[in-house]
């Protein structure tokens, strides 16, 4: 019949939840409904330590059908896609893939994507990297470039237009 979050008065989006679950099943092996909330994902989440992302809560909210709440939140963009949660989940539920699905949904519905993320996207589209080559400090306090460490020169984009077309096409497909 109906399930209502009495704080936000949001109704559970059961149909959307099923839709997301169907997509996840197509993309990956796991089903979010298998989650039994052990929070092993959050215990090891690198983003949790810095940015308070709680992957098990993301799965719980999806199971309750509270999808708008997540799509409207910036927290889903803090996942650094290390895939630790997917690799270690005892129920083969991949919170990281659920976060991808939610991020795709945000883009699809035209909602605001955080500024840093847009910048990163633009950088990938133009030079092929999330950021331009930079100098880095070493432990001994020196500042070095790739060449100083004997690393090979990065090639950059050979065919920027072709690359952008492929990215756009696959992004649309995924959404």
């Amino acid at each position, binding site marked *: *019949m*109906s*399930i*209502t*979050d*009495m*704080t936000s008065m949001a109704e*559970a989006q*059961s149909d959307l939840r*099923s839709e997301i679950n169907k997509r996840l099943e197509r993309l990956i092996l796991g*089903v979010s*409904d*298998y*989650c*039994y*909330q052990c929070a092993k994902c959050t215990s090891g989440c690198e983003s949790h330590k810095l940015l308070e992302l709680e992957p098990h*809560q993301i799965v*719980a*909210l999806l*199971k*309750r059908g*509270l999808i708008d709440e997540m799509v409207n939140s910036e927290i889903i963009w803090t996942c650094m896609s290390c895939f630790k949660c997917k690799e270690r989940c005892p*129920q083969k539920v991949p919170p990281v893939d659920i976060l991808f699905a939610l991020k795709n949904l945000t883009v699809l519905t035209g909602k605001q994507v955080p500024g840093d993320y847009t910048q990163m996207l633009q950088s990938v589209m133009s030079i092929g990297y999330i950021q331009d080559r930079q100098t880095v400090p070493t432990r001994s306090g020196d500042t070095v470039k790739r060449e100083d460490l004997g690393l090979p020169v990065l090639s950059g984009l050979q065919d920027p237009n072709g690359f952008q077309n492929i990215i756009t096409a696959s992004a649309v497909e995924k959404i």
Partner: protein
Amino acid sequence: MERIGVFVCHCGINISSMVDVESIVERVRELDGVVEAKSYKYMCSDRGAQIIKKSIEEKGIDGAVIACCSPRMHEPTFRGVAEDGGMNPFTVEIANIREQCSWAHDSRERSTEKAMKLVMSSVAKARLLEPLERGRTPVIPNALVIGGGIAGIQASLDLANEGFRVYLVEKDPSIGGRMAQLDKTFPTLDCSSCILTPKMMEVYHHPNIDLMTYSEVLSIEGSIGDYRVKVRRKPRYVDVDRCTGCGDCVTACRMRDRIPDEFNMGLSNRSAIYIQFPQAIPLKAVMDSETCLFHRFGKCGDGPLCVEACEAEAIDFEQKEEVAELNVGAIVVATGYDLLDPASLHEYGYSRSKNVITTLELERLISSSGPTKGEVRLPSSGERPRSVTMIMCVGSRDETQCSWCCRIGCMTALKQVILLRENLGEEVEINILYTDIRSFGKGYEEFYRNVRAENTNFFRGRPSEVRIRNEDIRIDIFDTITNKLFEIRTDMVVLVPAVVPRADSGEFARMMNLSRSGDGFLLEAHLKLKPMDTFVNGIFIAGCCQGPKDITDTVAQASGAASRAAGILSKKELENDPLIAVVDADLCSGCRICISLCPYSAIEPVVETMAGEEVVHAEINEVLCQGCGACVAACPSGAINQMGFKDNQILAMIGVLNDCSDAGGLK
């Protein structure tokens, strides 16, 4: 005894760390009558047994004091060792220097002193011990099984297949019990009837089983190997030899569809004459005299319609109650359980809405032999429910109701999710409000995982109330997983009630002389090591009468109990412990105090004529007596003595502990 051996055990370091074992050995060696004193690291080991046996052989000891752990642990071991070595096993005395000494104290010096006294007092007793012989009782090779649910059925079949005669007593008109009410069973989703009815048929046709349905145990006398049991056989008012189970009388009855049907949990109505369920064993009609018009008012229209309808002429209003007397060697109690009446948790609205039901009621709604022929419909309107919400742990794990876990609720609810989907289609919304999901059995966790993928909404928490306004049911649930309060609107609420002892279990336990644990279930002799035994020898328990359990565990325990019973029945005779109370008839004044005290009804007054006068004295039945000592302590004339604990033996021990230097002739 005159030649006593003292054997002191180190018990690894359990004793020797707090007691100077060697100093005890040295000291007791000097006592009168002690011809041998030895210590060993583990006296209960095979090596320790060899030491004792060697002393019997070489030193010719006729009494032994073993200073070791509690007699509850190893008294039987050492009696056995003594017997093997050729000594009378009842001249072995245990001095408990572990539980009552080394474990209890922290001063080595004073513990040693205390252990010394305990050992010396035991020596004083051992000097006065007498060799005793075990009595023998013949065993009646028949068994009584009380309760015809799956536990009783399994125990009966096991015993009958072993070749013993089995009397299976069931209070309902049919065997089958709770399992017969279920539609499917977890985790295999086997149809409950399909796996149960073959066993019921086997019971019915087994040449070694006397099936006594619609019967109750009235009283029990005797003891292990020879129980005498009275069974009340309630009148069915139907001649079972003639009745064909056709059901014509049921259809004809003037009270048809007017009496709540207990088997369907009151969700449908039956006649005054009825067959409990389609697969009933025996498939015979039974007349409920409390609702039958002819029984209540002496007339039923122009004449009872059942009589008119019955072609077999099986209706017999003249039938009377009968009492059968059985003689059995062992008893298996399998009386089952009740479900908590959820009305005791008023907040969940069980008595306020027809659409708030229990799992067992839902089971009947799902069953094809149930009130709706297997279509799940709202009891209020007969419509299909669009949303079903299950509330787990109703009264379970609840200090105001039942503190224990019902052990079947989680799996029952999960199973019903699958059955509801089969019944109502994928689109039905199912919410489960749970505290923990306990899916501990073989295949259970896998079952739970599958249900999780069935688009089921799990909310972790207990609702405070079910709000009911006509057809509108709402539940507030704070979900501790998301830390959010949700409001659920639903059509039907299924409560998963606690499993409780049978309403009459107190009365039943008193009649059978069985103990109950604090929760009211029958008490096992040891929770882990003797789970089928009771404190009454020869009576075993199986199934939910001992505590909540699922069918898997029930069947396992029933087979275990049957095997324990067969262990007794397969013997021609049993040996009795000689450590019992004995009356000195000359001292007995015939006051009968002991008779009223004896918990085993082992004492009877005997009238004798002496010098023309009638005198009464008490006599103790050595088979029934369990040696509890209640009569010994109560006898105002001091006429009763407990073998192995005679007054002179005990007083000698007290003398030593009081430090009377000459007590018991000790140096």
